[in-house]
């Protein structure tokens, strides 16, 4: 009854680069049956996206695909744009990771939705309109009569992804390819989009190829799973079987990559190091010579108290003010209210704060942006020493750099290399070494693991926990990723729109969240129940 509608045989993708050819996909075989969900799982650089790009004829100009892809017995690989256009957008459609940029910013969404209908179903703009409204309703866009005339920038990220899905469904496709469709979205929006996809599949019966790095999603969504690494499928099989008994060590490693373990709680009588009382941050947006700036209250009166050896996890969605709170606690952004270090109020101003900076450190989310590309690793991690221990000799600085690199698990001989020669995880270790070299007591960690692959995340979490135990550090850990927060924190603050909606000891918050918002965050991030009720 379930026939195979798409089959990929020995697919290879090679890119010509100035440094020679790079093979991104090396002989992939996949089969997709009608109506099923196939998940392709892998970390960044595994070739999972390029596999589907090759199928759809969307490789970059320097890419070449070999092998065979057949749709209902018909070869579709390298058959030319014109022939391929009979299938893509009609029988096989696709949604992308970047909802913000995947729609043309210059046209109303109604017009963009009409295009697949015009060129595949031959409908006129007028004839397409009822169908477009129906599609918008189907994907849950409120007030479609009005929204049909919106430009993409007038919609939120989640709404844009819904519009993309509507576009994908326009011609009742057989296959929907979803390339990390929720990665760029907040967790609660992610859950809604996934629910929508599951629901639509149930109603419309198309097959879905779901590309993701997130095994949590796969578990709840897929019938069949293929795990990719270095351009190859290392393991594939039915989802349940694969999760129950992974055969390949890489799959096992990915499944284990969920950060686990709990942090040892700090001593009962640990002294309070950093306290914030009624901290408020207001930004003034826009405003010119005449226009009055509009105030944005990013943090609306938050009080926290960080004790020695403690980790406070701050969770919330983007725009909730959690990063701003972290920066305000370090006096890196102007705020009102009291911020005190060991009971003494911290001064404002660059020069006045300098003596305190050595003990109050910050680690950023983006390991690619936070290291200056023109400096060697050695120069980067010793910059703080130049500021806080200017009397140190060059030799002593080099010795301290070696110690710091060794402490974060990097080879000290890498001191003379440049950041672009390192992977994301290594860079984040360098960023941590840069703070550790100053022997700080408090580190604000602003989403330090969000840009990293799961397996790397786990290592960084372990590293952070080890460093904390060894040096009795205190952390403010800012993240939207609840599983990481749970593995690191003693105390949780849940933020929404600049306010604390809930806080308490980690286990208490996780085991019995009191607020709907917290529950939604948890359900979206940690639930293992499947989206689809029937299959």
């Amino acid at each position, binding site marked *: 009854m379930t026939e195979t509608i798409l089959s990929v045989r020995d697919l290879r993708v090679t890119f010509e680069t100035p440094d020679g050819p790079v093979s991104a996909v090396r002989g992939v075989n996949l089969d997709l049956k009608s109506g099923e969900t196939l998940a392709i799982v892998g970390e960044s650089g595994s070739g999972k996206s390029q596999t589907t790009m090759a199928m759809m004829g969307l490789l970059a100009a320097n890419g070449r695909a070999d092998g065979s892809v057949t749709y209902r017995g018909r070869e579709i690989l390298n058959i030319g744009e014109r022939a391929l256009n009979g299938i893509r957008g009609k029988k096989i459609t696709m949604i992308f990771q970047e909802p913000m940029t995947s729609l043309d910013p*210059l046209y109303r969404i109604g017009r963009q939705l009409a295009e697949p209908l015009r060129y595949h179903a031959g409908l006129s703009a007028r004839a397409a309109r009822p169908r477009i409204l129906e599609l918008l309703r189907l994907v849950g866009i409120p007030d479609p009569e009005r929204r049909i005339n919106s430009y993409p920038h007038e919609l939120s990220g989640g709404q844009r992804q819904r519009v993309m899905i509507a576009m994908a469904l326009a011609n009742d496709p057989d296959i929907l390819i979803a390339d990390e469709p929720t990665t760029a979205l907040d967790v609660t929006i992610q859950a809604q989009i996934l629910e929508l996809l599951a629901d639509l599949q149930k109603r419309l019966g198309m097959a879905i190829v779901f590309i993701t790095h997130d095994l949590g999603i796969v578990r709840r969504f897929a019938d069949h799973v293929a795990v990719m690494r270095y351009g190859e499928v290392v393991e594939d099989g039915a989802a349940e079987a694969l999760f129950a008994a992974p055969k390949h060590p890489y799959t096992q490693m990915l499944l284990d990559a969920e950060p686990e373990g709990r942090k040892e709680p700090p001593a009962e009588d640990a002294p309070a190091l950093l306290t914030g009382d009624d901290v408020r941050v207001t930004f003034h947006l826009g405003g010119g010579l005449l226009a009055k700036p509009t105030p944005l209250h990013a943090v609306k009166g938050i009080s926290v108290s960080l004790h020695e050896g403690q980790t406070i996890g701050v969770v919330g969605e983007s725009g909730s003010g959690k990063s701003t709170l972290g920066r305000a606690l370090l006096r890196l952004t102007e705020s009102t209210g009291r911020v005190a270090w060991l009971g003494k109020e911290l001064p404002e101003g660059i020069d006045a704060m300098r003596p305190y900076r050595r003990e109050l450190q910050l680690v950023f989310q983006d390991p690619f942006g936070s290291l200056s590309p023109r400096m060697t690793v050695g120069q980067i991690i010793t910059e703080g020493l130049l500021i806080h221990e200017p009397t140190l000799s060059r030799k002593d600085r080099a010795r301290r750099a070696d110690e710091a690199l060794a402490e974060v698990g990097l080879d000290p001989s890498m001191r003379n290399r440049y950041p672009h020669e390192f992977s994301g995880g290594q860079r984040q270790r360098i960023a941590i070494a840069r703070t550790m070299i100053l022997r700080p007591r408090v580190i604000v960690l602003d989403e330090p693991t969000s840009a990293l692959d799961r397996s790397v995340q786990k290592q960084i979490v372990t590293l952070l926990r080890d460093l904390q135990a060894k040096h009795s550090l205190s952390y403010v850990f800012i993240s939207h990723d609840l599983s990481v927060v749970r593995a690191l924190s003693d105390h949780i603050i849940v933020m929404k729109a600049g306010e604390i909606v809930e806080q308490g000891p980690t286990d208490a918050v996780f085991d019995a969240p009191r607020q709907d918002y917290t529950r939604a965050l948890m359900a979206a991030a940690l639930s293992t129940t499947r989206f689809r009720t029937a299959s």
Partner: protein
Amino acid sequence: MLGYTLRRMASAIPTIFIIVTLTFFAIRIAPGGPFDLERPLDPLILANLQRAYNLDAPLWQQYLIYLGNLVQGDLGPSFTRRDFSVNDLFAQGLPVSILLGSLALLAAAIMGTFLGAVAALRQNSWLDNAIVAIATLGITTPNFVIAPLLSLLFGVVLGILPAGGWSDSNPAYWILPIVTLALPQVAVIARLVRGATVEALRANHVRTARAYGLPGRVVVGVHALRAAMLPTVSYLGPTAAALLTGSVVVETIFGLPGIGRYFVQGALGRDYTLVMGTVVVIAVFVVLFNLLVDLAYAWLDPRVRYD
């Protein structure tokens, strides 16, 4: 949109005012005057002349008089061409400059966009390389090299076009000046459009259009080229202002009666009113075309709002 236009025009007035003021005092305190001829004038005649042109009044008074006249649209009498007012000179010269400049602009926009788009669509082919190389040559060859060469080739060697001179009615006289004016702009626009199109073709929304099986002409024409036009439109504003106010080089080499020459002649001969008039005309053109560009930009890109 009307309100926006009016607001923009109003906000341009202070800029023009500052420019007029700066130029006025700069040229006035410069050594020399309009009547410093090789043979000094009789002091009595000089005094009469200065009185006739209000040059004997204090500088600030002259400035106020000039501003007063300017507001009424009177640019004053020319000092060196004593039978003409500056308004007369512009009435004669400006149509010529505008005619040549606008035709050159039109030609450059069409040719440049075409060549740039072709190069981008055939990226890294021989055609692309040829267009880029020729465009680089076009950008680097100064117009005072192109103009004499064209004049020599078509006017003298081949003898198929007039080597110089002007006729209101015979377009044959217009061709070489237009080509000279347009060539460097063709080159710049071609490179701009090429760069923008290459970028647009890589944009995610163009990938979406391709993924949905839209025909190539729709992907390129509707989704890529419109985005690619945006930087070109920004470039066209100042360029149009420069082209339409004449080019001293082209007018000198081809002997054209445009207004491009007035600036250098006026400044060198201390023809105060002529210099000021040129500055005002150029400033007005710059303001006007920047406004047009912003309106076109907002029309092309819905993300830009009038505010």
